[in-house]
């Protein structure tokens, strides 16, 4: 049941007249509705695969082709959609999930590719564009939120561009630790310090030295709020039940080696932890969280690294996140977006590696109003080009689709600092299959 604001307020007005037991049950109702409202906060979790994942070995295999590599395909919970045999847990979540197999992005330099995928714009020295996180933080901001609306776990992401420091990523460690959070100071003395600071800060901000000193002042204010906020508990995964932690691949303390890894390899639990923190943050009302996973620059021995390390880690964390969001009824309002700088070459090089490749590759989305259980677009037989029958999909098209799914108007236009109108998501075209 949903409750609009006027309805809610009329209950509030009536509550003064209620008798005690009724009031108590009404409090429960309010709490239930508060939960409901939290659930309805739209949000996006981006899983960013730093340095360019070989999507031809994960989401769009070419078994039997010279470009195919050693991996086999497996069936998934989405009829007809097959993925890598090393993603068995994700295979069970594919009915929620869509693979976009016809990405074609042109930028095969890490820096440029990462920028383009985060912003929908190619780099331009005279302007800095806002990234997904900044745009979504601005559009889906939550006034009751004390945590910054854009959190980047374990990576730097991309900045707010011309939207300003209020939408800059709040970068935290990959285990969700926020360093230097406590001052251990009594309130009156802290207030005294802050009073002195405000005097200096305000004077300099008012001294005609541009935006930066003013932005600094805003960041100070936000930081002080954060230091005293109860909401920071969202970063702590300790009180999650053991079975939830286990599902995210986080072994109980003392368990040491995780079972199932090839040759007793110690499983990397960092990505799983980050995913769990991301879910907690979204639950608390944070509209955008980016989780970074590195290690994808696989110029050599691509397949051994994928099989023994990267894919089991990815499979565990990503599948846990989607399943968990779905079970909590949050997936409908939370978009999960999986992408990297670019894909990797279909051709396998002399060192059994794959190099940079932006011409045709895959990204993945789930939830957030986007239709799962399908593969959108296709590449040709050996994976060297987008199939003739398909439109190539660009970064801005994906961004526009994610924003639309979250209910952000694509007519939104920003004004850059030099007064240029900038259409949200670089006027990208919506991928219609995701809304069928």
């Amino acid at each position, binding site marked *: 049941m949903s409750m609009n604001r006027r309805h809610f307020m009329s209950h509030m007005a009536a509550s003064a007249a209620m008798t005690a037991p009724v009031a108590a049950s009404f409090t429960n109702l309010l709490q239930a509705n508060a939960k409901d409202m939290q659930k309805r906060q739209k949000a996006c979790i981006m899983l960013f695969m730093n340095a360019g994942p070989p999507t031809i070995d994960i989401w769009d295999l070419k078994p039997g082709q010279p470009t195919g590599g050693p991996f086999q395909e497996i069936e998934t919970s989405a009829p007809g959609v097959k993925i890598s045999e090393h993603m068995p847990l994700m295979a069970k979540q594919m009915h929620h999930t869509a693979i976009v197999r016809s990405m074609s992005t042109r930028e095969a330099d890490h820096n440029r590719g990462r920028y383009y995928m985060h912003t929908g714009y190619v780099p331009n020295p005279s302007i800095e564009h806002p990234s997904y996180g900044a745009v979504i933080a601005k559009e889906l901001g939550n006034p009751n939120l004390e945590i910054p609306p854009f959190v980047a776990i374990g990576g730097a992401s991309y900045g707010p561009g011309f939207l300003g420091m209020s939408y*800059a990523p709040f970068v935290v460690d990959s285990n969700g630790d926020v*360093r230097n959070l406590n001052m251990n100071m009594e309130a009156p003395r802290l207030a005294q310090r802050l009073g*002195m600071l405000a005097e*200096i800060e305000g004077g300099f901000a008012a001294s005609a030295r541009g935006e930066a000193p003013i932005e600094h002042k805003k960041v100070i204010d936000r930081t002080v709020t954060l230091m005293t906020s109860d909401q920071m508990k969202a970063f702590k995964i300790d009180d999650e039940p053991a079975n939830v932690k286990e599902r995210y691949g986080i072994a109980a303390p003392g368990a040491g080696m995780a079972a199932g890894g090839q040759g007793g390899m110690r499983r990397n639990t960092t990505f799983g932890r980050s995913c769990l923190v991301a879910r907690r943050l979204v639950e608390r009302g944070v509209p955008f969280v980016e989780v970074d996973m590195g290690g994808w620059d696989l110029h050599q021995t691509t397949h051994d690294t994928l099989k023994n390390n990267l894919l089991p880690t990815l499979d565990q964390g990503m599948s846990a996140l989607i399943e968990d969001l779905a079970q909590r009824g949050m997936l409908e309002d939370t978009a999960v977006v999986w992408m990297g700088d670019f894909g990797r070459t279909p051709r396998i090089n002399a060192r059994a590696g794959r190099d940079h490749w932006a011409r045709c590759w895959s990204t993945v989305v789930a939830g957030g109003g986007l239709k799962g259980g399908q593969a959108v677009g296709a590449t040709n037989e050996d994976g060297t080009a987008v199939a003739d029958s398909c439109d190539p999909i660009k970064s801005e098209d994906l961004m526009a689709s994610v924003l639309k799914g979250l209910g952000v108007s694509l007519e939104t236009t920003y004004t850059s600092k*030099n007064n240029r109108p900038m259409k949200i998501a670089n006027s990208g075209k919506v991928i219609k299959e995701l809304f069928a």
Partner: protein
Amino acid sequence: MTKWFQLICCTLVGTSACALALWQPVASSTAAELAAADAAATARELPRSASGNVTDDDLIKFINEQIRKGWADTGIGPSPAATDAEWCRRLYLDMIGRLPTVEELNLYLASGGPDKRKRMVSLLMGEVSSSNPKDSARADKYLEEFARHWASKYSILFVGRPPAQRQNRELVNRDGMQAYLRGSFLRNKPWDKMVEEIVSATGTTSPGSPEFNGATNFLVNKLAENATEATAKTAKYFLGIQVQCTQCHNHPFNDWKQDQFWGLNAFFRQTKSVQNRNGQNVEYVTLGNEDFNGEGSNPKEAEIYFELRNGELRVAYPTFVDGTKINSSGYVNEVDRRAELAKLVVKHENFGKAFMNRMWGHFLGYGFTKPVDDMGPHNPVSHPELLDRLGQEFAARGHNVREAIKWITLSEAYSLSSRSTPRNKKDDPSLGEKPMFSHFYIRQMQAEELYESLLAATRADQEGTPEERAAKKAMWLSQFTVTFGNDEGDEATTFDGTIPQVLMLMNGDLTKTALTSAFMQQLSASNGSLKDKVDYLYMATLARKPSSREAALALNAKGANPQDVLQDVFWALLNSNEFIFNH
């Protein structure tokens, strides 16, 4: 307080010889000896400008005229001059990487004469005109700080900051890179000589390893994938030419072609690196050259192949960016390809410009192009005539780094206030406009500068041995580094004005240490009024006295004792925008 200052000077000069021994291959010489030797060498080697006997003053005048011309053309008026204290604060930050102490600031403010700024600039680079031994001791101390600062700057550019997690498998040895750079800046080695040494370097990477040559560190982590990163970074850093995209395709919006990339790349193909490991740990890497057979197995004509996007295979031989070809033999005893490349790089017309553009950008906040190392024809130049002339003069006068710094720091543009006026409000390059340098562009201190400033302000800059200090600093700095783990060596810093940085300054160990330092205890225990002590802290951090309201907040503050109040004042100052910005 003056006494403390003198004491610190003596200590520093006393330890300088051992600091050098640690860092430098040239070991036991003192800064003074090196400087004297190099002054002689520089005087001997410097050719005068082709255009006649142009003095530093002539050139500074030319810079000022060109900048003023830009104002006239765009209808902009300059801000008034910065105060002496403001200028001194920014000069210390930009030249030696830290704020001036109160004593240093007062010495400068008390100095006089029309050339006081010129003397200050020279002093911070270790040059003194007087024969007073006290002055030359001071100059030696600054020369060391100058060399440390520039070694750090260029080391970050060349090999990046230390990663957050210590990786023993890293090929680069940052201490080795810094040792080389520090020795070079200490001796004022001409820039062309440095770059030649870096591009053609052979030897080992780690201090103390056999045949140690710290210059090898520039290339040693850029050789993967047939040295594609070495190719791209050499062109970018030393010539301001961005070629990285042309590795795979012709550049969509500049003149660079794929065959040019591979022609340049062919110069690196005799390069060989060998890792000396102890278990998993890389102890040092040996960089050398070996005969290159060529991908066609004909070492006499050692060619390489590259693939066009359509799959067609093309051949390339060593060909420089301007089309110059060298003998394509792969035999090292016939052609040392990197040595040839080094010579071509330093003679290229962009070489001087690329350096001057980067240095101008360092001091003024923006270069003549954005970014400073992309000077391709597609990228507009704010002051093309000025950049050309600076590049030419720098080359013609022997690539003298200190001279270049004088031109920039003594220019009118560097002396202007950072406050904008109604007549230059539109001169704001952060909006994407071309910089007109009509006021000083403020920017945040780097993490390294904050660290050194706090050490100097609290007199903690001489605690422990130089090695211990360097290790402590590297450890502290590593908390801000975020690496992307890719073959371009990209990294970012969280010391970027966002919440993690503010949290660190409010609550972090560095601030705690500063607030409770011996210096702060001495300050609060010393004679003198609370007002004087508050003034002192403002001067130490902001180079100004507190306003009456600021002073009142401190003097009326409640605290169990004056020490608490002083701590609170210092805390507020360190966390302020006015402190963290260079303005």
